[in-house]
């Protein structure tokens, strides 16, 4: 990065944060601080919901996933439109009618204080753990590639987001997210067009897709009924729907976004915006990775995309093994490139037999390339156990730094930070709100003034920010932990969703039955996770179904609860 890139990065990040602080200055009551001025329009809500979900890892890692595994991951989002329709039709009107600040406050209206605390507690544990990851994950990649100090990257980005989230509350979060997502889209679209311009002359879009398809990168849908496969249409529609229902419908970081709307209409349209654009957005990001794969068929990629880790090991090793692997990779890639070029030539000549033969030869050559990469990862891991052996997170940033002109490099790095800050802000805002409304105001200090709770909310938001920064600084996170936190989300989300679906639809079930049902269902999910090896998306469905079924059974032996509550669906 040069001075132009750095000025784009620091200039835009600081300008967005300072503008948010300036435009949300002045005193506000608790409702204004936690839910915003109530004037937010659907487009801002839509972008805000999208920005909260899409973290920096979405934009850094997903192209790498497309590069390695193709488009299959897009199926994970197939359940989102269905879930968002249900949330729009059922959840939003209930939340708004009861004028709740948090989703868990709704559980208190419908059931009792202990169920409200259980829901809030599950959210705080899960989201509190994830908050550190949101800062750490992009910081480790960017600091490694850029040569920045990891601790300085974490602290600077962490303090910036804490500053404007604490100062401006919900309105500042929505406002910054609108501009941040603009920067993100501009960066991703620019990268896409530069990538297209970098493909070899004479290679048409159809050729590029044919090459990608020849390496099985365009297997976007898989109708296999196997539960062992991580991404299928069925796990995406069913598991993904329950995950999205839980995330968008019950996770305060999202609920807070659409409750800031000026009406039910604005909230609903903001959600429908995401229902329409979520799948194409993920498809586009994955396709970017697939096209980077095609690009690297004609251009030699690094044998290991995390160049910093590679260079450090090369400098340390004295046996020449890594250098030998690098040479073997060059030979294997050159052989593959020759076959791919022959394949494209045969396509252009209309030589079907030649095309089929070259495609098969290219596939065989690619196996050799993959073998050398696997040997390299194994060698790096053996030389330095604990080295992050999966380098797919570094694919996109490597392409950016090697291929994009200055200015656009700055824009893309800004986009990654914007994504990190926008999702972080949503999380902090929600953690502060939930701690204030569901714990502090409800249990610790009842009946205080609005001004007191606004101050408390600012303090809790800042504290959660410092916890996240501390977690990111002192926890030596590796990819396994990042994945573990994602899996942890699926393990908890199903049961939390079960709590809410019982609240909405099972009028006869009371607080005690659902409280114990949630605890038993959570234990069941933990047990199944320890013994089964199925796609983690299924735990959303299992946890939810178990919670609902056990609640019904328990209610049958418990005294009847009050019926016809305004907190249920009529």
């Amino acid at each position, binding site marked *: 990065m040069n001075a132009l890139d750095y000025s784009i990065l620091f200039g835009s990040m600081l300008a967005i944060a300072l503008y948010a602080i300036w435009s949300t200055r002045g005193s506000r009551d608790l409702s204004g601080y936690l839910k915003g001025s109530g004037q937010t329009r659907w487009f801002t809500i839509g972008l805000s919901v999208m920005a909260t979900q899409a973290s920096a890892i979405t934009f850094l890692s997903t192209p790498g996933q497309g590069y390695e595994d193709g*488009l299959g991951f897009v199926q994970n989002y197939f359940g989102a439109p269905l879930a968002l329709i249900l949330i729009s039709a059922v959840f939003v009107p209930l939340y708004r009618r009861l004028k709740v600040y948090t989703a868990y406050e709704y559980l208190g209206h419908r059931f009792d204080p202990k169920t409200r605390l259980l829901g809030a507690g599950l959210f705080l544990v899960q989201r509190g753990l994830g908050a550190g990851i949101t800062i750490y994950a992009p910081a480790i990649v960017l600091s490694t590639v850029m040569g920045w100090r990891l601790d300085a990257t974490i602290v600077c980005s962490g303090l910036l987001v804490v500053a404007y989230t604490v100062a401006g509350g919900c309105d500042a979060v929505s406002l910054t997210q609108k501009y941040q997502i603009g920067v993100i889209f501009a960066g991703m679209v620019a990268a896409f067009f530069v990538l297209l311009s970098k493909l070899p002359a004479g290679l048409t879009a159809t050729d590029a897709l044919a090459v990608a398809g020849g390496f099985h990168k365009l297997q976007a849908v898989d109708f296999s009924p196997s539960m062992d496969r991580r991404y299928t249409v069925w796990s995406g529609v069913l598991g993904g729907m329950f995950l999205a229902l839980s995330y968008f419908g019950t996770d305060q970081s999202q609920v807070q976004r659409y409750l800031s709307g000026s009406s039910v209409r604005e909230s609903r349209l903001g959600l429908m915006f995401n229902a329409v654009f979520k799948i194409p957005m993920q498809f586009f990001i994955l396709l970017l990775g697939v096209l980077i794969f095609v690009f690297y068929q004609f251009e030699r990629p690094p044998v290991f995309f995390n160049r910093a880790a590679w260079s450090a090991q090369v400098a340390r090793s004295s046996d020449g093994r890594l250098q030998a692997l690098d040479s073997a990779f060059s030979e294997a890639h050159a052989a593959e490139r020759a076959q791919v070029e022959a394949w494209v030539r045969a396509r252009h000549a209309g030589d079907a037999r030649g095309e089929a033969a070259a495609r098969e030869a290219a596939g065989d050559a690619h196996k050799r390339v993959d073998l050398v990469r696997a040997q390299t990862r194994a060698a790096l891991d053996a030389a330095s156990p604990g080295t992050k052996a999966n380098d797919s997170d570094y694919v996109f940033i490597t392409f950016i730094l090697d291929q994009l002109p200055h200015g656009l490099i700055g824009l893309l790095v800004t986009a990654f930070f914007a994504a990190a800050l926008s999702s972080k802000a949503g999380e902090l805002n929600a953690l502060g709100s939930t701690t204030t409304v569901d714990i502090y105001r409800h249990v610790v200090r009842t009946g205080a003034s609005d001004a007191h709770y606004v101050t408390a909310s600012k303090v809790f938001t800042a504290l959660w920010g410092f916890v996240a920064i501390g977690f990111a600084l002192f926890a030596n996170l590796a990819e396994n932990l990042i994945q573990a936190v994602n899996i942890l989300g699926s393990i908890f989300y199903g049961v939390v969703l079960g709590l809410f679906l019982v609240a909405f639809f099972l009028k006869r079930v009371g607080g005690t039955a659902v409280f114990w049902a949630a605890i038993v269902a959570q234990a069941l999910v933990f047990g199944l996770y320890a013994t089964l090896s199925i796609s983690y998306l299924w735990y959303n469905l299992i946890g939810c179904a178990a919670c609902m079924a056990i609640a019904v059974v328990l209610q049958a032996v418990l005294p009847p609860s009050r019926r016809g509550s305004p907190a249920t669906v009529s």
Partner: protein
Amino acid sequence: MRAPSDDDSTGLPWPRSWRGVYGLVLGVFLGWVLLLSLLTRLFP
């Protein structure tokens, strides 16, 4: 109390009802699944 009716106006020129909006969103979703299935089949 009842949740607000799905027939309440969306304020959009089209679709005017929420059922219409949800139908449109479902249609777009099915369209994407169809397009992705075609992509999978065309470039196996």
